[in-house]
C-alpha cells in the first residue's frame, strides 16, 4: 500500500539550493535518497553512477526495503562482479519524481505539510540528471569514471553526456533510446489513463485517505510489463497453457497462465510503487528527445561530448527500444567524432534482457568500465 511505502526510511540528503527545472518552475530544495557500494579512492576518481529505470530504485545491490527481494542489478554490481565494487565506488540515487525517498509527488508541501500530489512540478530526464549532479556536488565528486544505465537509466546517461560532458569519462547506455517514439508514448498513456480513471486516484490527493489507486496502477504495470518481454519469451514461458485448471472456465477468471502472471505482476507492483510517481516519471520519459533543443539534430546534443567514451548495447528481441534507436545514437556520435562502441546482443528476454542473465553483457560492461582506468 502506498501509505506503508511512504513510511520507509531511506538514506538521503536534503539540499537547500534551488533546482531550476526544464518546465521553468523551480524546486526550492530537493531531497535525494541514494545508496553507495565500494570505497571512494583518495583522488575521488573511481566513482561510477548507476541510473535506474522507470520503476527501479537506488537499491541496486541491496535488498529492497519494501519487498525484501535482492537488488535489481545484484547480478551486475558487487565485489568481483562486472561493476566491481572492489574497484569502484558505485552510487545510485532514486530519481527525481520517484517514491523511494527522493523528492516527488508524495513530498510534503513546505507550507501546509500535506503531500504535494499533482502540485509537484512536471519534471524531465534532464531534471533528474541535474538533481544527481547536485548530489555529487554534495558528496564532493566532481568527475565520474562512468555513468551506466539501462532503459530510462540509459536516457539519463545520455542526458549526463549532453549536459555535463566534462563530468564523466565514459557512458554505458543499455537497451535505451535518445527519444521516446509515438509507440512508447502511446503505451505510457494507456498506463496513465488506467491510473487516472481509477476513482481511488482522487485527482492525485489519495495519500491521506484510506484509498489508493492500486487497481489503476496494477493495470498500468500489466500493460507496461508486456512491452518489457518478447513475444518469443511470453510464448515460451506461458504459451496458451491454462492456470491451475484443465478446461476453460467460460468466465473471466485468469484462465490462462499469462493472465495470472500479469495480474500478479500488477498487484505486486502496487506494494512498492506510488501511482503519482508513475505518472510523473512516465511523463518525463515521454518528453525525452535529446535532439529537440538542437533543431532535431541528435549530433548537436553530443557536440561537447567528444571526449566521452560511449558504449551502447541493444538486444535483438527488444521492441520497446529497438536496435535502430541505438544505431541512431551511434551515427550521431560518429558524426561528431566521439569514441563509440555499439553491439546488438542476442537474448530471448526482450527489453528486460538488460536485467537478466546475458553473459555477453557482463563481459561488455566489465570491458567498457575497465578501459583507461
Amino acid at each position, binding site marked *: 500500500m502506498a501509505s506503508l511505502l511512504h513510511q520507509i526510511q531511506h538514506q538521503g540528503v536534503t539540499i537547500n539550493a534551488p533546482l531550476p527545472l526544464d518546465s521553468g518552475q523551480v524546486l526550492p530544495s530537493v531531497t535525494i535518497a541514494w545508496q553507495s557500494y565500494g570505497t571512494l579512492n583518495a583522488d575521488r576518481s573511481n566513482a561510477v553512477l548507476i541510473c535506474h529505470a522507470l520503476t527501479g530504485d537506488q537499491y541496486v545491490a541491496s535488498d529492497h526495503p519494501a519487498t525484501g527481494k535482492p537488488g535489481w542489478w545484484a547480478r551486475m554490481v558487487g565485489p568481483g562482479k562486472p561493476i566491481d565494487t572492489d574497484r569502484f565506488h558505485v552510487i545510485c540515487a532514486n530519481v527525481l519524481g520517484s517514491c523511494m525517498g527522493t523528492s516527488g509527488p508524495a513530498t510534503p508541501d513546505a507550507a501546509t505539510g500535506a503531500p504535494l500530489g499533482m502540485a509537484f512540478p512536471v519534471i524531465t530526464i534532464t531534471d533528474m540528471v541535474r538533481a544527481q549532479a547536485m548530489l555529487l556536488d554534495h558528496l564532493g565528486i566532481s568527475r565520474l569514471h562512468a555513468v551506466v544505465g539501462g532503459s530510462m537509466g540509459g536516457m539519463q546517461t545520455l542526458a549526463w553526456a549532453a549536459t555535463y560532458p566534462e563530468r564523466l569519462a565514459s557512458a554505458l547506455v543499455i537497451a535505451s533510446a535518445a527519444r521516446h517514439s509515438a509507440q512508447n508514448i502511446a503505451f505510457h498513456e494507456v498506463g496513465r489513463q488506467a491510473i487516472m480513471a481509477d476513482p481511488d486516484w482522487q485527482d492525485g490527493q489519495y495519500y491521506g485517505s484510506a484509498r489508493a489507486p492500486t487497481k489503476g496502477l496494477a493495470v498500468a504495470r500489466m500493460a507496461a510489463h508486456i512491452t518489457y518481454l518478447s513475444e518469443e519469451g511470453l510464448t515460451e514461458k506461458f504459451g496458451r497453457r491454462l492456470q491451475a485448471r484443465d478446461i476453460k472456465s467460460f468466465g473471466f477468471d485468469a484462465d490462462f497462465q499469462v493472465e495470472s502472471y500479469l495480474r500478479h505482476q500488477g498487484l505486486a507492483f502496487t506494494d512498492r510503487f506510488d501511482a503519482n510517481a508513475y505518472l510523473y516519471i512516465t511523463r518525463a520519459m515521454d518528453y525525452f528527445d535529446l535532439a529537440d533543443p538542437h533543431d532535431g539534430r541528435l549530433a548537436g546534443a553530443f557536440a561537447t561530448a567528444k571526449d566521452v567514451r560511449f558504449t551502447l548495447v541493444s538486444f535483438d528481441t527488444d521492441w520497446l527500444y529497438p536496435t535502430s534507436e541505438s544505431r541512431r545514437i*551511434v551515427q550521431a556520435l560518429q*558524426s561528431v567524432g566521439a569514441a563509440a562502441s555499439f553491439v546488438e546482443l542476442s537474448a530471448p528476454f526482450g527489453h528486460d534482457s538488460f536485467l537478466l542473465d546475458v553473459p555477453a553483457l557482463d563481459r*561488455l560492461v566489465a570491458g567498457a568500465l575497465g*578501459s583507461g582506468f
Partner: protein
Amino acid sequence: MALRPDLAIIADALPSSARVLDVGCGDGELMVALRGKGVDARGLEIDPANVTAAIARGQSVVQGDANRDLADYPDDAFDYAILSQTLQTTERPDRVVDELLRIAPRAFVSFPNFAHWRIRLALLWGGRMPVTRLLPVAWYETPNIHHVTVSDFRDLVRDRGIRVERVWHLSGDKPASDAAASWRAEHAIFLIARG
C-alpha cells in the same frame, strides 16, 4: 600472441598518434597492438561475437557492415583507414575503396592475391575453384565474392586516380620480392592515398 603478418606490417607502418579506423577489425587484435603506439584506433566489425570480444578488451568498436555503414563516418574523420582481408568479401569493392579514402586521406588495403601461382595451377590443372590456406572455403560457401589479383587492384586504383604510396607482398608469412609479385605473392598490402 604474434600479430598476423599483414597486420604486423600495417602496425609497423602507422605513425604514432594517428587516428585510425580498422574496418573489419575482428576481435580488435590490431587495435590492441596499436595501443602501445599511442594510436587512436576505432573499429567497425560485422560479427557481434567479435564486437563483444573487442569491447571486452577495452576497444571502441561499432557493430556494422562495411558495405553500408561506412557512410556514417564524416569526411576526414581519420588519418588512416584499414581494410585487411575484407575487400574481397564486400559487395562493391570499388565503392568501399572510395569510402575509405573519403573517411581518411590514406588507407591500408590487404587482400589475398588470386593470381598466386598455386591458384593458377589449381585452375589450370584441376579446373576447379581453388581452396588454399588464405582462401580455405569452397566456392559455394565462401564469403569471398569478389576475388581480386594484385594486377586487378592496381588497375582499379589507377582508373580511380588513386595513388599507391607503398606495396608489401607476402608469400607464406614472409616478405616476397616485388619482382613477379603478380604470381609469386600470396598476399598483398597496399598503402593508397587520394590522388
